[in-house]
């Protein structure tokens, strides 16, 4: 039996704001009946203020309670205020959720994102949660969502990721990808912390450190993407901020190899190592 707080119990037995708003001007849908939980959120937004919110949930007790909590939290708030609500705050409102049920709060957050995107007139494809590559095929979870949840909740293990997003919870074939994403995020966090310690200014990299970071980024981030398409990459040399690489496999005779070089290799190195890195093909 789950250890649900009294607040969760109260909200699943007597959920508030259940139903449909017929003249809603923002609707967000997440999940599916196949996954085992789904949420549709209806908002009525006037003058930038959320006047009313209602929901319909297919899901367990904590999914119902999280949905109810979300609607209570956002009614009366401005869109800007609502945008800032994290799944963590939904959990706090509920007085806590069992670890394995954290994904219920994330589902609430996702539905809110989608509803607000819908209100702004963005199509679903443009909104944040459907961006990125699908990492968990079973539950359709993207890396964008995983990274966001990892950051917002300071997650430390792959198990946490599964509890919060369901990714990796079924067939388990993406667990190694989750591990990679987690490591990347932790590394990123580490370098942010380093920045903080140096007063926000990055110390210029030493040559040896730059070489290490370039090599790591190519191995951990870039190569897996290329290999998926049958390509590969080899680091030939690092000369100051000039990185010399060789594209291999399918990439070597690909007409768009130049695009790959700039949009993937250079972009990633600039993201993870230094902003003014230049990539040249051998």
């Amino acid at each position, binding site marked *: 039996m789950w250890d649900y707080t009294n607040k969760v119990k109260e909200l*699943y037995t007597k959920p508030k704001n*259940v139903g449909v708003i017929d003249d809603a001007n923002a609707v967000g849908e997440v999940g599916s*009946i196949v996954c*085992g939980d789904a949420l549709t959120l209806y908002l009525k937004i006037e003058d930038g203020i959320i006047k009313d919110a209602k929901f319909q*949930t*297919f899901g*367990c*007790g904590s999914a119902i309670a999280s949905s109810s909590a979300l609607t209570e939290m956002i009614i009366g708030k401005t869109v800007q205020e609502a945008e800032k609500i994290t799944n963590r705050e939904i959990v706090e409102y509920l007085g806590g959720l069992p670890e394995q049920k954290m994904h219920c709060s994330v589902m609430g957050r996702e539905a809110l994102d989608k509803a607000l995107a819908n209100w702004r007139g963005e199509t679903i494809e443009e909104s944040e949660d459907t961006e990125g590559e699908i990492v968990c095929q079973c539950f359709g979870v993207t890396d964008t969502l995983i990274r966001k949840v990892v950051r917002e909740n300071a997650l430390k293990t792959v198990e946490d990721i599964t509890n919060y997003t*369901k990714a990796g919870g079924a067939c388990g074939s993406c667990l190694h990808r989750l591990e990679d994403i987690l490591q990347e995020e932790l590394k990123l966090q580490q370098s942010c912390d380093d920045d903080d310690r140096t007063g926000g200014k990055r110390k210029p990299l030493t040559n040896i450190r730059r070489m290490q970071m370039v090599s790591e980024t190519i191995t951990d981030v870039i190569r897996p993407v290329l290999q998926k398409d049958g390509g590969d990459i080899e680091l030939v040399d690092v000369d100051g901020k000039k990185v010399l690489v060789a594209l291999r496999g399918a990439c070597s005779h690909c007409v768009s190899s130049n695009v790959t070089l700039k949009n993937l290799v250079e972009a990633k190195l600039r993201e993870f190592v230094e902003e003014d890195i230049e990539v040249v093909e051998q």
Partner: protein
Amino acid sequence: MDRLIYLDNNATTMVAREVVESMMPFLTDRYGNPSSMHDFGGDVEEDVEQARHRVAGLLGAEHDYEVVFTSSGTESDNFAVSGVLSYFPRKRHIITTRVEHPAVMNLCKKYERDGYRVTYVPVDREGHLDLDFLLSSVDEDTALVSVMHANNETGVIHPVEQIGAFLQERGVPFHIDGVQAAGKIPIDVKKLNCDLYTISGHKFHAMKGVGALYVRRGTRIRPILYGGHQERGRRPGTENVPGIVGMGMAAELAVKHLPDEERVRALRDRLEGEILKKFSNVSLNGAKDKRVPNTTNVGFEFIEGEAILLYLSERGIAASSGSACSSGSLEPSHVLRAMGVPFTSAHGSIRFSLSRYTTDEEIDYTLEVLPAVVEKLLEISPYWDNEKKCGREIKL
């Protein structure tokens, strides 16, 4: 209704009053060790042997010593599988089913990781085992076949008698996990032609923490625990005397009350029939016939199992679900998936399991409460709205 309506007897059962009474002396005055030389301890051994005789009676064992007491159904399952495999180290093939209890399933997966070849026999949409598949999977390398007598989630009974007859001719050891059969249907290990048969006390009104494994005379098996001479060296450790005596009493009661199971069947059929009639978004999971009499598993569409359980629990009714959320595994029950039950209804599956203590009034009350629960959850569900828009209506 203030009291609890317990319809989760496949999870565990109430300890029978007679069982508690039979155990009391061994929890108070008669605390001796049956292995002791003095009468104070030695006399207790007679009670243990009487319990053994009673359990042998429940199973139809020819000799009392074919019953080995253990700590649980899980231990018995592990003893049976691992004990036989370690006796035949050269044979590297196990046959089991896709709907086994985790006690067998996860053990087989462990052996698979260790390099064993494991055949998981599939089931059809109603939960019936593919018998031909099973029989044709047996080969020279097969060390053991392990099949459950009745499934814990659907109650479907497997054709163990036919499997037993086939395997006996070929000399392949056969283990039956009978945890969900004991006390619900007649068991005769001689007729089933099995070498090993697992039961668990708390599933038939004994206490938790005691089980037994029937080991047919002459079965090649090694112990999985090493220690003293208890249970003829097959299961060392000082006997759980109160538990064993209680299970003996429970076994005798089970034999005596077996005819009552027809009343349980009638109650179950009424509950199930009314549910299937009352709601248009529900279907039966598992075969209608060839089931233990106490179990029904129904799948509700558009609503989720854990939520149903929580709402029922609020109203004093205890049941169980194969939904993903209720297990914390994120995927619905492996049994329902093996049967090919659509996810939409597996997520809303509810198991009611009755016992001989279940009354007419309890079934009435459950049937009275259920519509409001289902209706409320349908009202919350986004899918039901769509269905309604498509012109579908629910009878409540």
